[in-house]
C-alpha cells in the first residue's frame, strides 16, 4: 500500500508514541510490530517479562521506560558498539554473551549476568522486601486477596526458609537486617534494647537471631497496636518449621519403637506430630509473653463453640490467631472434610483455615482455604 510522505511521518510519530503502526504494511507487504524487548546479542525480538520463556534464560531489556529511553538514544546517536558497553565478565563465555541482562538506562549502558541481576522492581521502590520478610498472610499466600470464597491458595515456595537467603548473604547483610528489625521494634517500644553475647558465627545462630527479633516484633505489634497480622505470619512460619522437625523426629522414633502404636503407625506418627507442634507453639508463645490458654486472641487447641445448631457443638483447631484457624495434619484436607467445614462453622467465624503439613510430604504441602459461603 502506498501512503504519502505526510501520512508516513504521522504514522511514524504515532508509532513512536504508542507502538502501534497505523500506516499498514509497507511496500514489501511486511507489517511492522512494536516490541520493546530485544536480545542485545543479535537484535532479535524476545519475550516480554512473564512470557513463557522469561523464567528460563531469555534475555530481556530493563522495562518499557528504559527501552523507550534507549530507543530515543538509538535514534539520535549511532548504535553503541559492543566495546562501549560495560560487561560483567561472568557473562562472557567463549567470546559470546550468555545469560545476560541488558541495562540500557545506565551510563554507560551495561550488560550483566542474569543470575546476578537485581530485581528491576526493587529499583522502583517495590515491596520485594515483603517476600524476604513477610508480615501479612497476603504476602505469604500469593493471590490470597483475590481468591473467591472457598478457594485454596498454596504457600509461596521457599518463603519460610530463612537459611536459604542467609546462605547467599553475608554477615553485613544479616547485621543490617538485624538492625532493621531492632529499629522497627523500637518504633513500637521505644525502650527496647537487644543484647546479645555477640554476633552469631553460624548460619543457624544467625537464623535464630533473626527469628527471635521477628517474634519480638510480632509480639510488640500485638501488645502495642493490637495488630494480629504479624503474629499470624510468625505462627504459620513456626508451625511449619515445627511440623517439619516433628515429622523427622517422629519417623525416627517410630522406627526405633519409641512411639506407642495403637491403631496404626500412621496414626501414631500423626498424633506425635500434632502433639509436638502444639507443645512447641505454646512454648514459643510463652517465651514472648503471649498467652495461648484461651485468655486472648491467640489460642492453642482450645474449644471453639458452634452455637448455630439446636445443640451446642465445638471444634478444636490446633491453633487460632484472631479469625485464622490453623490445623496441622499429615492428611490433605479440603472443604469436603467435615473437620474443615466444622472450623468454618464455629462462632468465631474464621476467614481462613490454614492446613499445615510437613514439607517432606511434597509440593502443595501447606495451603490456605478461604471461607466459603455458609448458611447459618
Amino acid at each position, binding site marked *: 500500500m502506498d501512503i504519502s510522505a505526510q501520512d508516513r511521518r504521522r504514522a511514524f510519530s504515532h508509532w513512536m508514541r504508542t507502538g502501534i503502526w497505523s500506516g499498514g504494511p509497507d511496500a514489501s507487504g511486511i507489517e511492522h510490530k512494536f516490541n520493546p524487548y530485544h536480545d542485545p546479542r543479535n537484535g532479535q525480538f524476545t519475550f516480554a517479562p512473564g512470557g513463557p520463556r522469561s523464567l528460563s534464560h531469555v534475555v530481556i531489556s530493563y522495562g518499557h521506560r528504559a527501552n523507550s529511553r534507549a530507543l530515543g538514544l538509538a535514534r539520535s546517536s549511532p548504535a553503541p558498539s559492543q566495546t562501549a558497553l560495560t560487561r560483567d565478565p561472568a557473562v562472557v563465555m567463549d567470546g559470546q554473551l550468555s545469560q545476560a541482562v541488558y541495562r540500557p538506562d545506565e551510563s554507560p549502558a551495561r550488560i550483566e549476568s542474569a543470575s546476578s541481576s537485581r530485581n528491576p522492581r526493587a529499583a522502583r521502590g517495590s515491596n520485594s522486601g515483603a517476600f524476604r520478610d513477610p508480615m501479612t498472610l497476603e504476602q505469604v499466600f500469593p493471590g490470597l486477596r483475590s481468591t473467591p470464597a472457598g478457594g485454596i491458595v498454596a504457600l509461596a515456595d521457599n518463603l519460610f526458609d530463612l537459611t536459604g537467603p542467609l546462605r547467599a548473604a553475608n554477615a553485613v547483610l544479616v547485621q543490617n537486617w538485624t538492625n532493621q528489625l531492632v529499629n522497627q521494634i523500637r518504633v513500637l517500644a521505644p*525502650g527496647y534494647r537487644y543484647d546479645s553475647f555477640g554476633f552469631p558465627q553460624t548460619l*543457624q545462630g544467625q537464623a535464630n537471631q533473626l*527469628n527471635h527479633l521477628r517474634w519480638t516484633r510480632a509480639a510488640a505489634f500485638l501488645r502495642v497496636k493490637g495488630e494480629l497480622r504479624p503474629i499470624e505470619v510468625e505462627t504459620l512460619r513456626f508451625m511449619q518449621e515445627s511440623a517439619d522437625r516433628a515429622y523427622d523426629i517422629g519417623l525416627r*522414633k517410630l522406627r526405633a519403637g519409641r512411639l506407642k502404636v495403637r491403631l496404626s503407625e500412621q496414626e501414631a506418627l500423626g498424633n506425635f506430630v500434632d502433639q509436638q507442634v502444639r507443645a512447641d507453639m505454646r512454648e514459643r508463645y510463652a517465651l514472648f509473653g503471649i498467652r495461648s*490458654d484461651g485468655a486472648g486472641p491467640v489460642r492453642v487447641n482450645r474449644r471453639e463453640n458452634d452455637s448455630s445448631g439446636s445443640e451446642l457443638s465445638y471444634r478444636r483447631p490446633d491453633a487460632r490467631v484472631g479469625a485464622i484457624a490453623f490445623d496441622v495434619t499429615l492428611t490433605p484436607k479440603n472443604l469436603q472434610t467435615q473437620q474443615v467445614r466444622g472450623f468454618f462453622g464455629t462462632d468465631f467465624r474464621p476467614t481462613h483455615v490454614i492446613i499445615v503439613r510437613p514439607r517432606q510430604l511434597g509440593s502443595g504441602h501447606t495451603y490456605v482455604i478461604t471461607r466459603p459461603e455458609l448458611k447459618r
Partner: protein
Amino acid sequence: MNDTIDNPYYNPEPYVPASLSEIYDFLAVLLGGAPTFVDETGFYPERNIDTRFHQLTEAFAKVRKKLGEDRYAKLIDLAARAKALFVADPNDDNGKTLEGCKLIWEIEDIIQDARKRRVKAKLKDDEGEVTGD
C-alpha cells in the same frame, strides 16, 4: 541471647503446661527429645534433661487437684524413674532409653484416663467448658 533487660516481650520463666491436655501434648516432646533433650536448633541453648523434667513435674503440681493425690504421686514416681533411665543412657545405646519411653507411655495413660473421667463426670475446665481439662 540475653535480652531480658528492657524487653517486655521476652519471658524468662520456663513454660509449664497448665492443663491435662497441655501435659498430654508435652509428653510427645519428652518422647522426641529423649534421652538428652538438647535443642538441636540452638534456639533454646539452656534446655537439657533437668529443665525438661522440671517442666513436667511443675505441670503435675499445677493439676494436682484434678489428678487426685494417688495419681499425682504415681506420676511423680514415674517421671523420676524415667529421668533416671534417660540419664543412664546418654548415647541411646544400652536400651534404657526405650525403657524410659515406656514409662512416658504409662504417664500418658494416666493423663488420658484422668481426662476421660472428667468428661464423663461433666467436670468443667477453667473456661467453664467440659473438655477433660
